[in-house]
């Protein structure tokens, strides 16, 4: 058997290696080759996604920083700006769920910190396999513990998230993490290295052998041997992260740093080469100056280490002492390890000995871009499945849906997260969107994460549009005006034409919808190769959306109010069952076409909801998603702690009325005296309105079909997931 060439071991293809030799005009040494391998990994170079990501709109008057920096930034007025980004930590979490999830939080927080923003919120969209599998329960429990361990300790509230269970995630769960930061009266920090002769300072933890080649690992499919990759998973130290946050914010506040970037995937190699490329300069690093956690580390290990809780700062020589002083106060290392040069190269030294030398832009800009083949998968069908259930079947379906984890409270998860620290949380996790007040202003921001993988699976383009619509609808439900998105695009192997079709089509759908609604993307991340031995995950683009509410006191909760009110359905119900929770329960799988989005109606609905909130005429607003109207009613009653009575309108067929998942629909509640005004505003915005019932009492009365006791419903709703996990 022929021995594998070294470049292949490092994850590079033959053509890629040849391109490196051509660029350098010579063979790279092992250090240089390792640096190329991580920087040209899918994770760092976006080789298969770059061309498609250009579909996304990225501009709007309120966008301060679009894609390309460590996080996007939007202006929210009154001197405030919000920085945010979402990222994946899927592969590490599949192997070592606790540390994988924990370090995911650490990384995304440092991205936002790099912008000079104080991290004020975290949100975590999670995808797991069937809860009936012990492996899934293990992963679920430890991912949640890992997020809690890290997020709680650093004092950044975890205010939201969403969870989806599907067997396609059995061996490859998704752990996406979003961080939001706040900037007041200042420009975002940049990451471009500037000023020849300035000093490169490494701040934070000592460097160890952890996570070497982590970026390469993240760019492979998971298989039986993945367990051996456990040492590729880094270990998080949230206490150091907390003091790193305080120290860096103090350095920025005192104007002591020229630019800053966190050390994430590919460690010093990526941060130095990206900072140098952006600034059009070179950087010299002396690996002998890097404080080490372990002895006798090789230069390539130091350059590739993904040890956590580290930041790289560019500092003017005259400020170096003060930088070290501030870090010392916080008991952190701040070590000068190199200089900004005019060479445009990353040069690695061991004291005086040059051990590696690569033009920075070869690492950051010259990775090949691939536009793979795409092919529409055979499973995609034009069928529009329909269900017409008898009364008895409707009752059975209601009872079954009540026991679906998708319709149950996620309390078991979010109560493990401190979601109140920093005392800004006005609307807590569990509602359609979380709302944080902005101290020193009347405003609030609204945050949501969404990404229904079933719809994308059935029709990637339409599914992409539906994700955008749902996220914006969730923002509108709390009364917010949308500003921008961040995204995390989780797919299988892009070299498989069917996977690439899913990717390309769903991005196109998302981009078209963003364009229509006038809401751009300002940051994001792509995670490919999410495959286990049994195949690829359902295609899972996930978005985080940020909106603004002008008056924080007008934020609208999602659940039924204490006082008796009318329950009003906004929008029109069609017969949409493809990809619905009902279909999953009846058939054990999803098929056919997902609902088709009417973008005009959707937009009108958002404007209507924003106006209803502003006028203060509704007491709650809840979007209809998984489980249709039935799901929304169940949740609104259980979480709102009140019963209701629903009557199916005469011209509605009950199966569709209760279970169809037609988008662009919301239930709101309103006091009797405000109903006329609600009706008028619906007329103004062209949104259909139907009064379907009233809240109150201690029973949930679904017309003639079913009456449930509130206390029992609550017990099931709040304890279902904990019970399934085994607590």
């Amino acid at each position, binding site marked *: 058997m022929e021995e594998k060439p070294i470049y292949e071991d490092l994850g590079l293809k033959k053509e890629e290696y040849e391109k490196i030799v051509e660029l350098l005009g010579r063979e790279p040494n092992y250090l240089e080759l390792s640096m190329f391998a991580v920087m040209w990994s899918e994770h760092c170079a976006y080789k298969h996604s770059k061309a498609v990501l250009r579909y996304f709109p990225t501009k709007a008057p309120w966008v301060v920083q679009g894609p390309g920096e460590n996080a996007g930034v939007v202006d929210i007025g009154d001197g405030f700006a919000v920085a945010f980004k979402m990222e994946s930590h899927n592969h590490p979490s599949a192997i070592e769920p606790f540390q994988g999830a924990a370090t995911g939080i650490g990384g995304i927080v440092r991205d936002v910190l790099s912008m000079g923003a104080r991290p004020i919120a975290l949100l975590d969209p999670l995808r797991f396999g069937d809860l009936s599998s012990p492996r899934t329960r293990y992963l679920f429990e430890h991912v949640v513990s890992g997020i809690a361990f890290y997020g709680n300790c650093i*004092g950044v509230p975890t205010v939201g998230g969403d969870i989806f269970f599907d067997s396609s995630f059995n061996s490859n769960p998704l752990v996406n993490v979003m961080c939001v930061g706040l900037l007041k009266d200042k420009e975002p920090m940049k990451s471009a290295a500037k000023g020849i002769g300035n000093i490169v300072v490494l701040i934070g933890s000592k460097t160890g052998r952890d996570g070497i080649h982590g970026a390469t690992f993240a760019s492979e499919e998971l298989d039986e041997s993945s367990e051996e990759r456990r040492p590729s998973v880094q270990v998080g130290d949230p*206490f150091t992260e907390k003091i790193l946050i305080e120290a860096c914010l103090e350095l920025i506040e005192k104007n002591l740093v020229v630019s800053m970037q966190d050390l994430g995937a590919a460690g010093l190699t990526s941060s130095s080469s990206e900072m140098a490329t952006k600034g059009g300069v070179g950087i010299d690093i002396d690996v002998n100056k890097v404080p080490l956690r372990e002895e006798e580390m090789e230069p390539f290990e130091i350059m590739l280490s993904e040890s956590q809780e580290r930041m790289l700062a560019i500092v003017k020589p005259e400020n170096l002492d003060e930088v070290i002083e501030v870090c010392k106060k916080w008991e952190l290392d701040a070590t000068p390890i190199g200089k900004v040069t005019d060479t445009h190269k990353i040069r690695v030294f061991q004291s005086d000995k040059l051990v590696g030398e690569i033009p920075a832009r070869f690492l950051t800009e010259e990775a090949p871009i691939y536009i793979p083949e795409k092919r529409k998968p055979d499973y995609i069908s034009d069928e529009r499945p329909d269900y017409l259930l008898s009364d008895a079947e409707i009752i059975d379906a209601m009872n079954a849906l009540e026991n679906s984890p998708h319709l149950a409270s996620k309390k078991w998860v979010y109560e493990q997260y*401190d979601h109140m620290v920093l005392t800004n949380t006005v609307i807590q996790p569990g509602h359609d969107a979380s709302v944080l007040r902005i101290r020193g202003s009347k405003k609030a921001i609204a945050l949501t994460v969404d990404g229904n993988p079933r719809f994308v699976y059935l029709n990637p383009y339409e599914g992409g549009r539906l994700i955008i619509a749902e996220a914006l609808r969730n923002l509108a439900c709390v009364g917010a005006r949308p500003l921008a998105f961040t995204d995390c695009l989780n797919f299988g192997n892009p070299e498989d034409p069917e996977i690439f079709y899913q990717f390309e089509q769903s991005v196109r759908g998302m981009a078209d919808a963003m364009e229509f609604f006038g809401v751009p993307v300002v940051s994001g991340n792509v995670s490919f190769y999410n495959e286990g031995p049994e195949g690829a995950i359902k295609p899972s683009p996930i978005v985080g959306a940020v909106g603004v509410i002008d008056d924080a006191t007008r934020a609208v909760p999602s659940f039924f109010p204490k006082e008796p009110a009318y329950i009003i359905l906004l929008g029109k119900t069609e017969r949409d069952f493809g990809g619905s929770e009902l279909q999953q329960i009846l058939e054990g799988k999803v098929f056919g076409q997902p609902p088709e989005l009417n973008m005009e109606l959707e937009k009108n609905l958002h404007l209507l909801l924003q106006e209803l909130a502003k006028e203060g005429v509704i007491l709650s607003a809840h979007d209809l998603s998984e489980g249709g109207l039935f799901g929304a009613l169940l949740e609104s009653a259980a979480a709102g702690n009140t019963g209701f009575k629903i009557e199916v309108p005469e011209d509605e067929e009950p199966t569709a009325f209760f279970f169809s998942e037609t988008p662009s629909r919301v239930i709101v509640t309103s006091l009797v005296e405000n109903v006329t005004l609600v009706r008028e505003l619906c007329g103004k915005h062209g949104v259909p309105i139907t009064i379907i019932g009233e809240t109150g009492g201690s029973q949930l009365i679904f017309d003639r079909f079913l009456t449930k006791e509130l206390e029992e419903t609550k017990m099931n709703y709040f304890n279902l997931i904990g019970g399934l996990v085994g607590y």
Partner: protein
Amino acid sequence: MKKPKFGVAVFPGSNCDFDAYEALKILDADVSYVWHEESNLDKFDVIVLPGGFSYGDYLRTGAIAQFSPLMKSLRDFIDKGKFVLGICNGFQILLEAKILPGAMLTNKDLKFICRYVYIRVENVNTPFTSAYKKSEVLRIPIAHHSGNYYATEEMLRKIENNGQVVFRYCNENGEVDEKSNPNGSLNNIAGIINEKGNVLGMMPHPERACENILGSEDGKKIFVSLLNSAVGQLLP
């Protein structure tokens, strides 16, 4: 009237320091932060030990913070009869330093819990609770992993008999029962005071319950009580 001077302690890893500071600001209190290396506490009338994960809580919750210069000076501060309020991790530090009796175990279900609970005010004859009515029920958040209060039988008898139990977990109607006990604390204890009556430790977060927009104002009267009683009323 002279306003009492509040100091909010900042240990590396404190993360509710800002919240306590802001809550006091809402009441227009005279407040500043005190760095953990500060050993001169003369200018303060009240020290708040805030929640968080001081020093990462790596040994045991609150175990390392007790060795800081601030904590060394705090004993003298307490001996002078000045007031100390320990919230969450602050309470844990006071237990580790043996300034308050007992210890904290991991929550009974072994998980971090963040949610609103109800607590009943058991003793209103303290400088921390004088603005409350006896048996008033407060809706207030908890957020901890180790809030399961434990004391020896003898200790427990003593603090119960002395009226040192200031807050107990209860239900919405003020009934103290097992179902309302979120973490397994003995006798549903949520907060205790020292014998002298000038050091209060509590697991719930009053600083998170000072504004209606956040969902509750029920914690505010702790700070109001301190504002009313902290001047010129040093305990002997």
